[in-house]
């Protein structure tokens, strides 16, 4: 941030969001609940658009299993409104419990263990209304789950890190809350986890999450009250292990998304994606102090010393994977991203057509653009 006062605007609806975008000159940071400092370090800006007052559920249509919210709504608040109807947004990213907003979770392309079954928000967002840097209001998608009319510009928001548009309204598809959830933990070394995972994934048991953390593999099943015990028993028969309380996932969430009180943790956290079969070998090469690894999804979160991040990007890239810094300690000046993807010219062209003056989120994609 610059030494001069940076003005902060807190729009509350579409009209004031557009006004705010037009009222602030120069470079703008879009902020949410502040539960992550993901991607490149923000360069100095002239103004902050704080989305936390863009909050509230606009519609919930239980029969259609859709809901729309203002983008600054914490996902957990939406979850509380949906729960009495037996519905949910099927996203269990670690930051949700700390108040992460819907817009923030989209902007960072975050996801949790159940991405194995439900994907990330890219798979759950069905419509959006945004304000571009020049004040243009645009919407895409709509309020129906099945919709191929026009380009799906909601996808551009996913992983945009506040650099393309201010999200104002988001429409989501919902899923039923399962009657029961069962977790089975199998003690095993990281190197042995993928063998278990292969057996489970080739079985008909349909786990919704499969994560290795803290010396054990956690498998989560969702289902009906009458069927869940039988399925969990089949899982134990297949892999060994024991039924656990769902609280075991809290420890996993801390390793991924930090402490529940948001207090700083030691080391830098890197989110990695690579072919599941390459993940054990890749993780063995990294100087990790803590690891969670989704051997079904290929997504891992690795904590490491700040000075190891730069080299880690290159190791991941060499394995054909992707990496991004999802939590940056103050002392860490490492780049957030590894080598640039081949589609960088397209990313640059999209950025320059939607934000020609480069106003939004400067630095987030450094050193690429």
């Amino acid at each position, binding site marked *: 941030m610059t030494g001069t006062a940076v003005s902060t605007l807190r729009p509350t*609806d579409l009209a004031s969001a557009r006004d705010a975008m037009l009222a602030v000159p120069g470079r703008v940071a879009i902020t949410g609940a502040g539960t992550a400092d993901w991607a490149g370090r923000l360069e100095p800006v002239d103004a902050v658009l704080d989305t936390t007052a863009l909050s509230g559920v606009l519609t919930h249509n239980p029969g259609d299993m859709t809901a729309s919210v203002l983008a600054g709504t914490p996902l957990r608040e939406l979850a509380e409104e949906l729960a009495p109807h037996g519905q949910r947004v099927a996203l269990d990213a670690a930051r949700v419990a700390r108040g992460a907003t819907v817009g923030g979770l989209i902007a960072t392309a975050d996801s949790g263990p159940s991405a194995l079954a439900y994907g990330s928000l890219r798979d759950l967002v069905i419509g959006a209304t945004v304000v571009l840097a020049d004040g243009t209001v645009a919407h895409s998608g709509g*309020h129906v789950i*099945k919709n*191929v009319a026009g380009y799906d510009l909601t*996808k551009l928001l996913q992983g945009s890190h506040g650099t393309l548009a201010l999200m104002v309204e988001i429409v989501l598809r919902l899923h039923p*809350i399962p009657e029961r959830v069962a977790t089975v933990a199998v003690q095993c070394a990281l190197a042995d986890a993928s063998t278990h995972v292969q057996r489970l994934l080739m079985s008909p048991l349909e786990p919704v999450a499969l994560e290795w953390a803290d010396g054990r593999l956690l498998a989560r099943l969702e289902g009906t009250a009458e069927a869940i015990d*039988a399925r969990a028993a089949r899982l134990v028969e297949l892999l060994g292990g024991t039924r656990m309380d769902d609280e075991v996932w809290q420890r996993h969430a801390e390793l991924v998304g930090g402490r529940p009180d948001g207090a700083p943790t030691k080391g830098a956290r890197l989110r990695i994606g690579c*072919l599941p079969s390459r993940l054990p070998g890749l993780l063995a090469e990294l100087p990790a102090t803590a690891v969670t690894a989704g051997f079904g999804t290929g997504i891992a979160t690795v904590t490491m010393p700040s000075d190891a991040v730069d080299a880690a990007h290159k190791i991941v890239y060499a394995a054909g994977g992707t990496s991004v810094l999802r939590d940056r300690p103050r002392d860490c000046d490492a780049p957030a991203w590894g080598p640039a993807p081949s589609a960088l010219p397209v990313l640059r062209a999209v950025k320059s057509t939607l934000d020609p003056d480069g106003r939004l989120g400067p630095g987030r994609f450094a050193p690429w653009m």
Partner: protein
Amino acid sequence: MGAENVVSDPARCRAYECDGLTGYRVVPELVLLPQTAEQVASAVRVCAARGVPFVARGAGTGLSGGAVPVAEGVVISLQRLRRVLEVDPVNRRAVVEPGVTNLDITKAAAPFGLYYAPDPSSQQVCTIGGNVAENSGGAHCLKYGFTTNHVLALEVVLADGSVVTLGGDTGEQTGPDLRGVFVGSEGTVGIATRITVKLLRTPETVRTLLADFPSVAGAGEVVSEIVAAGIVPAAVEMMDALAIEAAEAAVHAGYTIGTPAALVVELDGPVEECDGQFEQVKAICEAHGCTRLHIAGDAEERAAVWRGRKAAFAAVGRISPDYFVQDGVVPRTRLAEALDRIAAMGAEAGIRVANVFHAGDGNLHPLVLFDADKGEHDRAEKLSGEIAELCVELGGSLSGEHGIGTDKVCSMPKQFTPEDLAVMGRVRGAFDPSGLCNPGKLLPTPRMCGERPGEYRPHPLEAAGVIERL
């Protein structure tokens, strides 16, 4: 590329003049049949250098005119890029060329107990490249999602002939989701030459029933109640009396002639889950005045139920010389209202409308029946367009899975504001500044749709008093 891969004889070029929407025809100047991705890229480079528009084409089964050629342009057929490059059972994915058919991916994966989930009705012939362009759905997308949810990576030839990869091995993103923008872009931002898809494990069990109801509205209530019970069926399909009559005449699948509505409900998954929920579905059907409940006892009976459903489009030819297929979507809770309105509109126009649809996700496929020889074409076409626009009015969409293409391009201003369309145009320009890639599809142009900007409706900001039109 070699003369054997180029078609220039106008008579042979005529074979490429239309896709599955046969009402729009344009004979291309030239048809190219590249054999490799490199040849696709070099063909596009030549087009770019000379400013020649080009249209990518798969099997030509699309129903929205998305692959209609451009006059004085080139068709680039992907039919000869049909290798399954890799099936990786450990990581549960396949890498294929764009000309591989949808069903051939599942055939390649089947020995490993895996399959490719999206299943458009044309899956035996439609290509994965076309599926990517259209973001194809299918009967089972209610539970499993659409093409976009199953594509991890795309190698794409852009309009300038450069080659980039969108997405990656895990679907993890480095920056905004360009792969997600490409899927469903109807061939207007590039040509996919290599596609990595997810494979799923074949479900342990599948249970299918066919249930008759005294009214379409009654069958609709059953769908709502199944959903309210927290059940996510693999598929829920509905057919009305006219559609059943046509399908039975064609394939004798065992549907009840004369019943006002029939529902196909399919559940799949682990045995314990599936069996319990299937009993619940049966009970819901019975509680809503089901007049006949047929449980598919084995794979053969299940196939028969699906044969009837999947044959419905083509079978309509048995009861009408000509027809249009629509593809609008309404919120599921407004299904009954939509069908009533469609029936009234048909009655007023003196045109019959048969209904086959994906009831679980509100995706209608009204079949507008007419006889061109009796001069009914224009009336039917008008009704068909009005039905699509009715879906927008009810809070839905012009298209659930067939795409906008040429067919519905002039209806886009009903669903999107001029600002929305302008932003889509900016994104298109980011991929293809020259505008050579399948021009005239998806986004309306004054040349195609006249200078009319579409029906006036207040912009949200205008309604809120923030801006005003002078």
